[in-house]
């Protein structure tokens, strides 16, 4: 409790209180004004603050990421600096490093930069899924189950599918994009907006189509969080087939050229 009192009296937090209403604002234009400080700048900056102040800022950054992660919204560096880091921007790299360590050691999450041009970050799960047979944790959540089906279709079809194929597949599962679903509500919105914003899916216009058509691909979060091997295992069980019988997919799921995926994937 003493902690709390101390905190609510601290000036940095009362500032935080005032801005917290603007948590959702995007800070695109801000990025231009933020340049990553050099190592020596960080060193000099750290000499001017107490370690308690750095810890406090780190805690605020961690909280900010957790709030965003509840909705699976990626965090932009610019917005993080503007809303949370603020006057500590000269030691931003150190704060981010400490936050990443806390996510890893306390929460079992990994802080990943998914876009190094716009500097966007997401949290992915570091812990292995428990049941090796099927992605149970996903399937107990209906929305995640829906996503898993879509990701499976895309993967099995070679990485990219026209949207019609997805809608038809879902229709067979009695999930109709044109109707209000009792669990998901507006299915079309969930799939083409929510999953896309969360970076599970990419939904891109196919050029030169008339009427306009879109295609789906895996988003960056899916690449980081979802194991292709697990999908293949799941398909194998569904169709009573050996995963190896899908040669191309099997190679993709287990190939060493997927090294990047293998090291960062949370569902190894």
């Amino acid at each position, binding site marked *: 409790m003493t902690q*709390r009192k101390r*905190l609510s009296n601290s000036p940095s937090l009362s500032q935080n209180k005032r801005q917290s209403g603007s948590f959702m604002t995007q800070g695109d234009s801000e990025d231009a004004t933020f340049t990553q400080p050099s190592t020596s700048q960080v060193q000099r900056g750290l000499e001017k603050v107490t370690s308690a102040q750095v810890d406090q800022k780190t805690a605020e950054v961690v*909280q900010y990421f*957790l709030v965003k992660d509840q*909705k699976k919204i990626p965090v932009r560096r610019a917005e993080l600096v503007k809303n949370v880091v603020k006057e500590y921007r000269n030691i931003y790299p150190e704060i981010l490093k400490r936050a990443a360590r*806390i996510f890893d050691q306390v929460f*079992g999450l990994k802080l990943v930069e998914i876009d190094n041009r716009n500097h966007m970050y997401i949290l992915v799960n570091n812990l292995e899924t428990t049941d090796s047979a099927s992605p149970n944790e996903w399937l107990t959540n209906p929305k995640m189950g829906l996503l898993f089906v879509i990701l499976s279709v895309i993967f099995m079809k070679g990485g990219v599918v026209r949207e019609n194929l997805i809608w038809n597949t879902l229709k067979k599962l009695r999930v109709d994009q044109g109707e209000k679903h009792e669990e998901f509500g507006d299915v079309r919105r969930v799939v083409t907006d929510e999953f896309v914003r969360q970076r599970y899916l990419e939904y891109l216009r196919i050029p030169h189509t008339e009427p306009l058509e879109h295609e789906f691909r895996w988003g960056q979060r899916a690449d980081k969080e979802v194991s292709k091997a697990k999908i293949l295992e799941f398909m194998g069980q569904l169709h009573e087939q050996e995963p190896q019988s899908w040669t191309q997919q099997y190679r993709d799921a287990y190939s060493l050229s997927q090294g990047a995926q293998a090291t960062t994937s949370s569902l190894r």
Partner: protein
Amino acid sequence: MSRQMGDSHRRFLQAMMGRGITDEQGALRLYQHCCETHKTQCAPDKLDDFIDTINSKLQPMFMQIRKGMSEDNGQQYYALVNMAETEITRMTSDYADNELELFRKTMDLIVSSENGKASSTEILNSTDSMTSKKLKKSETEHLLNRLVNDKWLCEKHGEYTLSTRCIIEMEPYIRAMYQDQVKVCHICHNIAFQCQICENPTCGIKIHNPCVARYFKGRTEPHCPACDDFWPHEIPEVRRPHTKSRR
């Protein structure tokens, strides 16, 4: 008990982040599951130690897994709470400023009421004194639904109470904000909303309904534990924990 955090602790914490709140049986099942998954020791009476280990690492983040009682059924619950800002941090990303103002007004009504409840009419009327953008009737109703869905309020027959999660999370805030009005249970010393009150005007202690049930169980002639006056209220039954496993 080692204070070192392992993957079983991390998995437990992740699940709590997803659930927000869970009853004691749910927490025990989860504890067991996490220990089995990571092949670590699990003793049912060590749940609180296990959670203390997590809390020791959460503390610098101003977060905590806190235990509290449901005023409704007297069961123990565990909730992941945020202590960083005494104000409604976790709500700020989900609710607009005027919606938060109405939530605070609802808390005002509930805290200052005799029975820990606020009727929908009272809440609708309180929009007249809003300083931020006034909510329309339909917007207020929609907001109340959302607050119930998000487990901040409970609703029964058009009357609203604070949810268990809300009480556990906001207890320090409520104690600080409503110092003069806040009631504390004579038995468990936690903050009390839905409770019975001693009718002796010089006493007037409060006891939670579930605490009343436990305290007076089996006594034929109930007397106030503070002033020894006759306790004139109906003594509720002790509610057993429902063993049905609900997710």
